[in-house]
């Protein structure tokens, strides 16, 4: 075990061993070697140090994924700072709110993405940073913990919350990734998830720890499932990690049957439930053969011959904490779901009922060195999500699970949190935005499926006598929320259904759609 390594040191160790290997690539043919990436990240670290960025600093990043941005993340870590990737598709108002919350020492953004009204002088670091990135520096107070990165996730009270991940948390995850998936020097990874999503930590840091090569993909390749299928095949990717929704888009719309996927040996997914039926369809298309001919009772499917499939589970706050290798299941039950599997080595777990007592089925609590340090400046929220049992600190996941033979099964949430295409959405955050509209009196947000089973976010809105227009509400939300949190449907009602005690009846709402 190399428990003392910090997140970027895994990369530096690999760079010393494999200086001439390609570390990062883009679909358009750009690439950088380990040696050059080490040099570039060092230049960034030095430039940041000159601006008094160091241990305890936070660097907010707002730019499309690129080789330079990853070099900057590594440079931030080498300077001692934590990197904080923000969603480049966020509207400016949300970026400003996040910057107010984060109080960073540096904000580095693609030139076109700098929101107006940032209370600072914009300095361009043209000598070290490229023409594409601008930077602003602030005096903000430094934190005390050894943070590697902060990822903002949806917050139930209306503001996103920053999950603070320490170097130790991140290092344990990288070690687990190496031990479990055994990447070799030259293994080719794809980076499909955006950098503000925790799946990206695997794509970038596990690959760079192993001497692998990561192909950096942006929205234009990922959201166009046909291009994604083509790129994964033509760039001979060996290990690809994405949400089930992304894999489903590849299988339903990507025409994977046109391409050769013989290089693709490991398919990883996380973020939401992948039904066996949809996964089987993906396997059939990638392998170009039929496993399932219609009668689940008689069929035996063994789609593991050509590649391995892994179901990973874990909130941002713990990163992956359980995982399931699908070859354990032998036959795939077409109408079923896969378990989330066993707890990762080093982590501890408890299933707890509403009274806080151990139970067969209940909320999953996770303990161990990968449990995050807490939410940035949210003492009340931290008091809520952390629990202590027998002297050990646990994170309460809010996920309802059961266990059989040490294998965990996921049964949904104990609260109202929604998953839309793998993204966490707290309905309260979207409702708070809806309620900011002057004509909205009541709002409730639920999830639904379209006729093909893809997630939809539904806003139920009442104006209490005022006439509401769906398009006006949509534009209002689009000005304040990132794309994945924008409701897909607006149901305009006189008033929302209530429970006997006069509260909004959320259960009634879900059923009414």
């Amino acid at each position, binding site marked *: 075990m190399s428990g003392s390594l910090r997140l970027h040191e895994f990369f530096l160790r690999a760079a010393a061993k494999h200086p001439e290997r390609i570390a990062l690539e883009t679909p358009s043919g750009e690439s950088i070697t380990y040696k050059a990436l080490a040099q570039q990240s060092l230049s960034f670290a030095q430039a940041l140090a000159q601006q008094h960025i160091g241990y305890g600093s936070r660097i907010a990043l707002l730019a499309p994924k690129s080789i330079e941005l990853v070099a900057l993340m590594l440079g931030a870590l080498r300077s001692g700072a934590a990197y904080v990737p923000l969603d480049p598709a966020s509207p400016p108002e949300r970026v400003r709110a996040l910057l107010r919350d984060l109080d960073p020492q540096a904000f580095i953004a693609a030139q076109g993405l700098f929101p107006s009204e940032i209370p600072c002088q914009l300095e361009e670091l043209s000598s070290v940073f490229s023409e594409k990135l601008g930077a602003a520096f602030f005096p903000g107070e430094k934190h005390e913990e050894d943070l590697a990165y902060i990822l903002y996730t949806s917050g139930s009270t209306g503001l996103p919350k920053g999950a603070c991940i320490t170097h130790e948390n991140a290092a344990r995850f990288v070690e687990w990734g190496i031990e479990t998936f055994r990447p070799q020097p030259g293994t080719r990874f794809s980076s499909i998830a955006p950098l503000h999503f925790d799946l990206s930590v695997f794509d970038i840091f596990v690959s760079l720890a192993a001497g692998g090569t990561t192909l950096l993909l942006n929205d234009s390749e990922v959201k*166009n499932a*046909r291009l994604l299928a083509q790129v994964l095949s033509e760039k001979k990717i060996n290990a690809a990690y994405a949400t089930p929704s992304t894999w489903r*888009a590849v299988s339903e*719309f990507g025409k994977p049957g046109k391409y050769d996927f013989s290089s693709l040996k490991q398919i990883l997914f996380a973020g939401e439930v992948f039904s066996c039926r949809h996964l089987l369809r993906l396997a059939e298309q990638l392998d170009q053969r039929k496993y399932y001919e219609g009668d689940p009772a008689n069929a035996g499917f063994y789609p593991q011959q050509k590649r391995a499939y892994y179901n990973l589970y874990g909130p941002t706050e713990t990163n992956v904490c359980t995982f399931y290798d699908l070859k354990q299941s032998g036959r795939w039950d077409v109408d079923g779901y896969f378990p989330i599997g066993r707890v990762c080595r080093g982590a501890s777990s408890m299933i707890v009922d509403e009274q806080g007592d151990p139970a067969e089925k209940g909320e999953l609590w996770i303990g161990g060195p990968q449990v995050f340090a807490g939410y940035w400046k949210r003492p009340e929220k931290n008091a809520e999500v952390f629990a202590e049992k027998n002297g050990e600190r646990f994170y309460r996941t809010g996920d309802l699970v059961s266990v059989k033979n040490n294998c965990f099964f996921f049964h949904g949430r104990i609260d109202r949190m929604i998953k839309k295409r793998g993204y966490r959405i707290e309905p309260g955050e979207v409702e708070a935005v809806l309620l900011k509209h002057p004509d909205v009196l009541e709002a409730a947000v639920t999830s639904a499926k379209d006729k093909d089973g893809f997630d939809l976010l539904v806003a139920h809105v009442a104006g209490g006598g005022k006439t509401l227009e769906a*398009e006006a509400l949509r534009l209002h939300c*689009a000005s304040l929320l990132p794309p994945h949190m*924008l409701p897909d449907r607006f149901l305009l009602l006189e008033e929302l259904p209530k429970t006997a005690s006069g509260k909004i009846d959320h259960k009634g709402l879900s059923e009414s759609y």
Partner: protein
Amino acid sequence: MPTPDDIKQTIRRFLAENVLGGNESAAISDDTELIESRLIDSIVALKLVNHLEETYKIEFEAHEVDQENLSSINVITAFVQTKMK
């Protein structure tokens, strides 16, 4: 050979079913920005492409499933027409 109006009608019907909750009279003009205004997201765009391919027996190349070719009803219609030539 379908006329531009036929193609527009196909697109409008699809949007009504998949985006506007069955409300075909909703205020989308032939030039309304569909993707930039976030009226349709990536899944809906991919479904629309599949629907147009099946309806008109055409095929979009991977790189053609792009905002450039899907930005408005007029743009999509023109693109479908070039594909049918």
